[in-house]
């Protein structure tokens, strides 16, 4: 079950990174550049946030598969 959850979460994290990349490229693209910084800022920051928060999740997914969960004491 740990493996299934790690796989699902890793897929979500990878998808979030891809969507974040699409947000950033759209924000810095020709279409939104003409519309001003305010309209560029939202997808840029959102994309950056998605990528930054996806990385620690990917890390934990790998750790969940590789490491043995801490056994409860007693």
């Amino acid at each position, binding site marked *: 079950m740990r493996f299934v959850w790690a796989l699902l979460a890793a897929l*979500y994290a990878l998808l979030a990174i891809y969507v974040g990349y699409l947000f950033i490229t759209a924000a810095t693209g020709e279409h939104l550049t003409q519309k001003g910084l305010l309209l560029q800022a939202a997808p840029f920051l959102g994309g950056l946030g998605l990528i930054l928060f996806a990385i620690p*999740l990917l890390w934990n997914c790998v750790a969940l598969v590789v490491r043995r969960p801490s056994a409860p004491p*007693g």
Partner: protein
Amino acid sequence: MRTVMLLAGVILFAAGLAVSYVTWTSGIQPWGQLLTDNFLFARSLPFTIGLAITLGYWRASGWRSGAEMRDQQVRRFAPSTVWLHALAGVALVTLIATGGWQYLKGLEAADSPIYMGTVYRLHFIAASLLIFVTVAFVTDWLLRGENALTLGKGQFIRSMRGLARELPRPLGSIVGYTLGLDLRRAAPPTEEFTWYERAVSFPTWELAIGLIIVTGVIKALRYVYPIPGDVLYWVSAIHVGSGVLLGIKLLDHLRYVLSPSRWPVMAAMASGWIPLGYVERFHPGWYSRITSSEATTSTAPTPSSVSSATTVRP
């Protein structure tokens, strides 16, 4: 009485849906699929909310206080909490997928390979589900005065001290320095939920879900009540922003619960039960309440020192 209330909610919900459905199938209105779905969603909302309130009342009035234990495990979540959380999870993932699809279509100015009417239909169904679960939970918590996931009145400084001790050292030091906390003092014991969950995670869920529901409902009502274009523009912008925030929040939530050391917490969200040894080690405040409570339904375990408890890291 509580079951009668719940049945009344179910009957009213079914009647509300039936009236809207009959109107739709009669062909009186020349609406397309998208507009029909929008109207169905908007018209069903009062009945969805009403049903959720009766379910929240049903849950609250049948709630058993006190810790329930079996085989060195303690109940962390009621079965209905497990189901409602699962429903909220399914609704949230569907909303992020369908909402993200709509936003990306506009952002990339691309044609959708999937019929957009279907995407919106799924979005409305998932939105109804999320509103239902949210209202049921809020009603239940308000009626029971449940505050395990909040900081509690007059507990801000203490909570921040707990949070600062849970965070990785550099982040915790920043929080401590910014708020002028005395981090030489021992961390307050972790209760049923960690300080991170109470001070950061749950308030962010409240903000993001609150914003997405309020703005989503306003957007859905725009064909029922006229809403000025400027207002609708900003409402839509906030709706998209809170959608992205929910996507980020889900990443952080999964990161937190999928940490190897917290796997028992993750498993508890499916089974409802958590090993007592884990509670003793990572939730000493809750453990001492459980062990000192006379309301337990089985023999209480031997209490042990809470001072040796391990600090939870978010």
